[in-house]
Every structure is written in C-alpha cells, then in structure tokens.
C-alpha cells in the first residue's frame, strides 16, 4: 500500500490537466481503489453500474425531460456471465485514465484499439468488437458521472450544419454561411471550451433527419430565404449534434423545428431530441430540448398533399409494435395530438419518408411544405 502512493504521483505528472480532468481521475482512482481494497480483503470485487433501461428512467413532468433512476446493477468478477464485462470495465477505466493523463483525446474506435490485446496465456482477446468497448465506456460514463468529453473520448462526426451563424471551433472562426454544398461537420465535442458562438442572425433552427434532405434544403438556400440554421443528424443524432442544438436553443434562444420521417423511427428521433434517450438518460439535462417541435411529415400529409400510392412503405410487424411502444411513453401518453398522429399512421398502414414529397416537385418540401407549416404554425409539440 505504501508503494502505491509513490507510483501514482510519478505517473500523474506528465501533462497539464484541467480541474475537470483531476475530478475524473479522482473518480476513476476511487473506483479502482475500492476494487483493490475488496480484493485484498479476500472478498468478491464488485462495481456498481447504474441500470440503463426504460425501467430505470423516469419522466420529469416539470422539466419535461427523461431522468435516470437510482437503480444499479452489481457487476462481479466471480460471476460467469459478468466476469468478462468486469475485466473490460477495469481495462477501459485504466485506458481512460492514461488517456486523460496524457492530455489527449481518442475516438471510440481509437480507445477500442488502445485496450485491445490478447489475454496472456490464452487465445482470447480482451474485446470482441467495438460495440463491446462502446457499451462499457457508456457504463463508465454513468458510473463515474463523467461525460464522454470528460473521458477525453469522442465519437465519429455525424451531423452537418449550415446557416446564418458564425462560430469558433478550437479557436478557428467558422462562418456557417460559407460552407459550400457540404456544410460544416458538427464535431463530437461542442462544449464551450471548444466551440463558441460568435455571431448569430438566424431566427430558428430547422433540424432534418438525414443528409439527403439537408442537401435539398441547402441547395435551395432555404436557410438564406428564411434566415435560419439548418442541421442534420444522420438519423438518430449523435450526442455532439444534440448538445449543439441544446446550446444554440438555450444560449441563442432559437426555437427548434424538426422535419422527420413519418415512421416510428422518426418519432423516436423526435422523442430523443425532445426528452432525451433512455440509454443516456443521465445526459438529458444537458441535451434534451423539451420545446422542440415536430413539423412533419405527418400521417395526414398523404391526403393533405395529395401524394400518390407510390410513396407508401408498408408498416411491418416490428414497426407496429414499436409505434405502440412509443405511444405508451409517459411523455407521449398524455398528448392527444401525438396519440392521434400515431393512430393515424397505424390506420394508414404505411410509413412515409420526407423524400416522398419530391414526387410532387423537386423543391416542394423547401418551397411549399415547410414554409406553409411554419406560417400556419402547424406542428406537433
């Protein structure tokens, strides 16, 4: 025990660390020390991992966000089903600590490789594929109460922005009005120390589901005509996109409108943006935008916009089950318009993508559909 102190101070002095880094390291060390202490006492080492399931989340009606409950699950080394996970948790914790101490950041994939090796004396690898390490890293975030950024980890970029706003990213000034056809790629970490808002003229944010739709809007210079910011999250938006939307919404007072597919998947994207995700409920308070609005596509649009049969994509059994599940979510269950929307979709028996509006006209969605909805204040909340 005496030796331990010596080595610790020696390894901690390699890079300049922020106070937040020190806090994270203290958390990591605390966890490892508990494991060590229990082990040396001849008892079963255990780490408590907060449960990340729907059952352990609650909807805070006042804040209108999902919150994580207190339920935890013991992860034991001497349990056949948990032994490997326990080992991976310790391994990634050690990897994270050395990363923070080095003052560097890694992608999730980079972290996977950092901790990947063959266990001595066997042919088994410490990690199967990246999904294993991703999951354990999410566990670590929850266990330590640290954000992914605080663990010096980032996900791959997935999300694009363009619009009447100028920002600085890691000190570089970026004018989002001059991003060409590709747009500004939203990074994984958008915390104030990395990203600052310099100048914003936009009046609202239009978030669309995927890149193809975003390109349509960008080419038609929708954001110029309507003075807004146009974002896209590649389906289920990653945390960087959600965090950026949150910050712009709160710091710049911009309302957020979402244009998503008319299917359970689109509805769930809206749900995540608005209330937070079940899996990462602990981050809701810094990501969820309860005021976000759902502009479309609506189930009634098939008739309202006089679309043809060709745009129909039949709902399969899984879609139907999922739709019913979403309707049961506490934050939807008391909202009549949403209940009706889901009922209508189920009654239609098909789903529709945003692109289906292209059957009317190439720019129908940018020139007619969205402006009409906005003008009529016709959205779901």
């Amino acid at each position: 025990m005496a030796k331990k102190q010596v080595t610790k101070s020696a390894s901690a002095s390699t890079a300049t660390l922020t106070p937040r880094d020190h806090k994270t390291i203290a958390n990591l060390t605390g966890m490892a020390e508990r494991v060590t202490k229990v082990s040396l006492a001849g008892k079963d080492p255990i780490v408590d991992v907060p449960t990340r399931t729907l059952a352990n989340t609650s909807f805070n009606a006042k804040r209108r966000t999902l919150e994580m409950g207190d339920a935890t699950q013991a992860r034991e080394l001497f349990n056949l089903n948990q032994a490997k996970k326990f080992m991976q948790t310790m391994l990634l914790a050690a990897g994270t600590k050395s990363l923070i101490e080095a003052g560097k950041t890694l992608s999730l994939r980079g972290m996977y490789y950092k901790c990947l090796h063959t266990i001595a004396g066997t042919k088994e690898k410490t990690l199967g594929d990246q999904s294993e390490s991703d999951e354990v890293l999410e566990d670590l975030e929850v266990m330590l109460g640290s954000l992914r950024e605080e663990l010096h980890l980032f996900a791959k970029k997935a999300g694009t922005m363009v619009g009447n706003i100028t920002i600085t990213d890691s000190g570089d000034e970026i004018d989002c009005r001059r991003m060409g056809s590709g747009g500004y790629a939203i990074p994984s970490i958008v915390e104030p120390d990395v990203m600052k808002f310099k100048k914003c003229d936009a009046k609202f944010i239009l978030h669309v589901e995927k890149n193809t739709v975003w390109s349509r809007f960008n080419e038609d210079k929708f954001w110029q005509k309507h003075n807004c910011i146009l974002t896209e999250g590649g389906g289920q938006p990653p945390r960087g996109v959600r965090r950026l939307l949150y910050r712009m919404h709160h710091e710049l007072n911009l309302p957020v409108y979402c244009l998503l597919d008319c299917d359970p998947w689109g509805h769930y994207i809206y749900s995540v943006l608005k209330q937070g995700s079940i899996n990462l409920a602990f981050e809701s308070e810094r990501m969820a935008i309860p005021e976000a609005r759902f502009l479309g596509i609506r189930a009634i649009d098939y008739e309202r916009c006089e679309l043809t049969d060709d745009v129909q994509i039949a709902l399969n059994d899984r879609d139907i089950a999922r739709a019913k599940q979403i309707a049961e979510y506490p934050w939807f269950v008391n909202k009549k318009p949403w209940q009706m929307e889901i009922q209508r979709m189920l009654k239609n028996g098909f789903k529709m993508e945003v692109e289906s509006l292209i059957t009317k006209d190439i720019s129908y969605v940018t020139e007619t559909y969205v402006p009409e909805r906005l003008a009529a204040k016709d959205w779901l909340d």
Partner: protein
Amino acid sequence: MADSATLEPPETTKKVKAPKVTAETLATKQREISVSEFFAKNRHLLGFDNPRKALLTTVKEAVDNSLDACEEAGILPDLLIEIRSVPETGGKKTAASGADAQSAPRKAPNAEERYRVIIQDNGPGIVRKQIENIFGKLLYGSKFHRLKMSRGQQGIGISAAGMYGLITTGKPVLIITKTAKNKPAHEVLLKMDTSKNKADVVSETEHPEDDNLFPDGHGTRVEIELLGKYFKGARSVDEYVQLTAIANPHARVTYKSPPTSAFPDGESVSYERTVNELPEQPEEIKPHPHGIELGILIGMLERTESTKLGGFFDEEFCRISPAISRQVCDAADLTPNTWVKSVEHHQAEKLYKALQEAKVQGPPTNCLSPIGVKTLLMGLERGLKPEFITASSRPPAVYRGRPFIIEAGIAFGGNLAQTSSKPLEDEEGSSGSGSEPARVYRFANRVPLQYQQSACSSFKAVSETNWRNYGCEQPRGSLPVGPLVIMIHMASVWVPFTSESKEAIADYDEIREEMSLALKECGRKLKTYLNRRQAMRRAGERRTIFLRYIGEVSKAAADITGGEAQAIYDALMATAQKKTAQMDQILDEEGRVVDGKDESVYIAASADESDTDSATQSSPRSPATTLDDSEDLPEQGSLFGDEGATKPKKKKVIKKILKKVKKKRES
C-alpha cells in the same frame, strides 16, 4: 439347387437314370433321407450360407463347444483360435496364401480361399470312442435333451462344420484330444458319411503320453479345412473373438488371424483372463408345467418310468406340488393314483389344459448362470477400453415356462470414439458420415450373435428405448448415435432363436420387456455420468474464465491506483480458489452416484476426453490450468484424463500462491 452337384458325396453310388417313370422306378429312388444329407443340402439353416459366414460359423461352433466343455469340467478356459491360409491344391487358381499371397495381386478383394481353422482348448478332452459321434454325427450331443443353460443346444454345430469342410475341400476333420496327463493323445482324421449320418475314420495315431501338445495335460484340438472368405469389420471372425472375450472374461483367448494384404503375417491378439473364477455352473432343471405343449406331454407320458400320475408329475416336472397334482388330475376326472398307461388322449388334453391354468410357482432359476454385473464390466473393459461402462443384471423372469435372465451393458467413449465400425453392405446400411450409430452387441448364453440384427428381439428393444431421455441423440425409431456400445445378454435354459443358425432371439413380449428394463437401468446411469461429465466440464470452464481475467483485472486496477498488481492478483487467485472449491463440493453432492460407489459403473482412469467431445457435445476446453483443490478431492481426477494430467501443474500454482502470501505476510 445349383450347387447340388458339389454337394453329392463322392462315395455314393450313381443313381440309375430310368427312361420311364413308373411306381417301381420311383421306388428305387425313394429312400430315407439322413439328417446329415438334409443339412448338407440346406446348409444355410446352420449358418453356412456363404463362404464368409461359413468361416465364422465354423470358428463359432468349435469355440462354443470348447468353452462349454471347459466350464462343465470346471476348468478355466484357455483357447487358441487360429485361421491359416491354405494354398489351393486344385490348380485352378494360383496359389494364394502365405508369402505368395501378398506378392501376387489378388484377383478379387475377398476371393474365396481355403482356410484351415484350428481351435485348441484345455478342456477335459474326449473319450476315444465318442470322437466319431461328436464330430461325425449331426444331432448328437449332451445338450439337447436337458434343460440346462449352455452355449450349444442342438448338437449340430461342430459336425456340421466338419461336414461343410469336407464338402468344400474334400479334407477330413483332424481331431487331437487328450483326457489326462498320463493318457495318450489321440489323433484322428475323420470323414463324414452324409448318407448314413456317421463318420468314417480315415487314419488314427496315438501320441505318446508325454507329448507337449497340451500344456495342461488335457484338451482338444480341432482342425477343419474349408472354403471360406476372410474379412474384417462387422460380423467378422475378429469381431466374434472380441465379443467372446467380452462375454467371457474368465477365458484366456489367443487369436491369430490369417494373412491379409495389410498384415502379411496375420494379426495376433490375446485377451488375458480378467476374472479368475468360473461362472457358476448352472443346474439342470425339469420342465416347468407352463413350458410344455400337448404333444410333449403325451410323449412324456409314454416315456415316463413312473407308474402313477402323481408320481409322474412329481418326477418329470418342477414346481408341481401334491396339491396341484391333485387339482390337475381332478380337472381331468383322474386321480394321482391313476395309472399313467391308462391315460387316454382326451384325458391328456384335459390334463394339459389344467396344467396351463394351474397357478404354479415360476421355474427355479438356479439353472441360469448370468454373467453378472461385475464380470460384465470387466469384459466390456477388456474388449472395448471405453471411458465409461455400466451394466445391469435383471432378476430372473419366465417365458413359456422357461426361466431367463436379461443382462445389459453400455460402454461409452474412450476407444469407441476412435474406432468406428465400417458397416457392410448387407443388413443395416449406415450413411457412415459423422456420428455413427451405436453398436449393439447381442449375446445368448454368452455366445455372440452377429447376424440378423434387425430381426432380433434385443435390437428392437434397443431401438424402442427412448435414448434421448438418457442424453443420447437418436433418430426416430432407430439406434442411438454416438460412441456407444450397447450389450444385451440373454441367459436361458432354452434361448428361443428364430432359426437353427442361432442368429436372432425370437421376439417374446416377456423377453423384450426385460430387455427394455435392463436398458433403461443402464441408460439412467449413463445419463448421470454424461450430466456429471458436462457439469465437470462447465466447472472447469468457470475456473479458467476466472483465472483468465484475474490477470487483466489486477493489472488494470494497479494501473489506475498505482498499486502493486501482484498483490491484487494473489488475493484474487486465493478468492477464486475458494470459489471453485465451493463449486466442486456442490458437484460432489450432485454426482455422488458416479463416484465409484456404484458397483454397476466403471469409469476409465485414463479416459481420453477430447475424442469423445466431437461425438456428444463439443465444448472446447481451454488448455489453461484448472484450479481445484486436488488434495481435498482425490476422486476428481479419475473422471477426466486431462484433468489428471494437469494436476501437478495445479499444485504448483497453488504452492506458488501460498508462498507469495507467506512472503507478503512476513514483509
């Protein structure tokens, strides 16, 4: 019959072909058919259907006789079985035997060849004047008339073999026999006269008393030359010898096979004696009233030496008390004092009916000599070298008034997983790929039954049993699959065969029921073993999983805290040890039956586990050291060979830990 020409004995005078068929000419042809003549033409009834089977039957009949003789005389049998290739003298074919055989390529892989079958035993020998009768006369023997359990029954076997040899090669049978040390050995060349059902002595020599032909001072040696076909695999002589060794662990068997292309000098196998006691000699019993038929009863009434009915029932039958005797007589309006000679046919009929209806005790069972569970285990171990054996011996039961005992055994894994029988083209055809069906070894009175498997009651009993209940795979309605040998033995004073060649047991409900019960008993034990085997493997996996991760965990924890990984490692190892020791204890309670306490179970000490894996469930076991406290559990190693092998390693690991813990404490 196409081969009737060759069957015609050379001695018989040629029949005159009459130009016209009249009653007189017909009469010249009408003559008595001797039993031997009948069988010469219908040799398939005796198991000489084809050259392949003929070779087997010859060996079998001779061995049956030898073993019976030895046991009856109270001698532990010592058998020599040898098959020699004999060069053909006819000149039609090129000499194909011995050294020439392998140099000259064979025309056909299994061409018919001449073989000389030699069987030598250390039995009591045969009195000179009986030699002709025993070896030259069909239906002559000591076993037919009695109700006593023995291998041979009808007394056709060996003489039929001799006859077959004579027909196919023209060579007489050679018999050398010696009855005692101080008596001379007789060497007789015997030729059978089929038309007269008697044998002619071709030549005779008397060996000096002090010759060394028989090391024990007594015994018999029979040599028969015949046209046969030697092959290996299922239903071969090799298999027969192996099966005989399984069923007779009290016999020492030395076997020399004829040369083949793979073994130019032939193969030599010897099975050492593993049981030094003779099986208990069965008693002879009288017929049981439920086991006879009307005709037999009438015959018995005619032959009996008793004068009155009461005495007749008492003398000729078992289990008929005076009360029952009276009851039976009453039913036919007779009394026990009625003269036997005065009983008329219709009365006999009534007597028979009353006998069948009478409530009599089952037949005595001391006439049966079961192999016994312990001996079965030893026999199966000797013959198969499996990983696991279990056996069961049922209490005696009765069919048609004849007592019988069913015994069953199951051998699993070990050598069985490596050597798989190659099924031949006839009878059961198997796809042969991947998992082989179990082999069924059938025995009747210790004699292996190799042909007509699917017609046999025992085969039906095996395929009817639901082996899935016992942890085996089993395609619907057929044999289970896996490295399994299922053995069934029927011991009875009269085994009901489906034909004279004694190849399949007739399908009586009572017999099949008993077989089923015996198989189920074995099946349950097999399942217990298989479960335990799996549990052991799982426990082993558990240990290796913990061991595997402890290193990583302690290193990671130390990396974070800056502590010493070794200390954490040692502590965790000690905890793991405690944990797995607990697990072992639980397993012990579960699997107590298999722990060698059950006398009907044998588990090989050096069972090669890896080979049987593929056949049952494949769960790869890491070669990493397993951790259990071997000192506390001395029995553990016997279940798995490789576990035993890693034991020293384990001990080392434990010692290392203890040392380190000690060091730590000191510092």
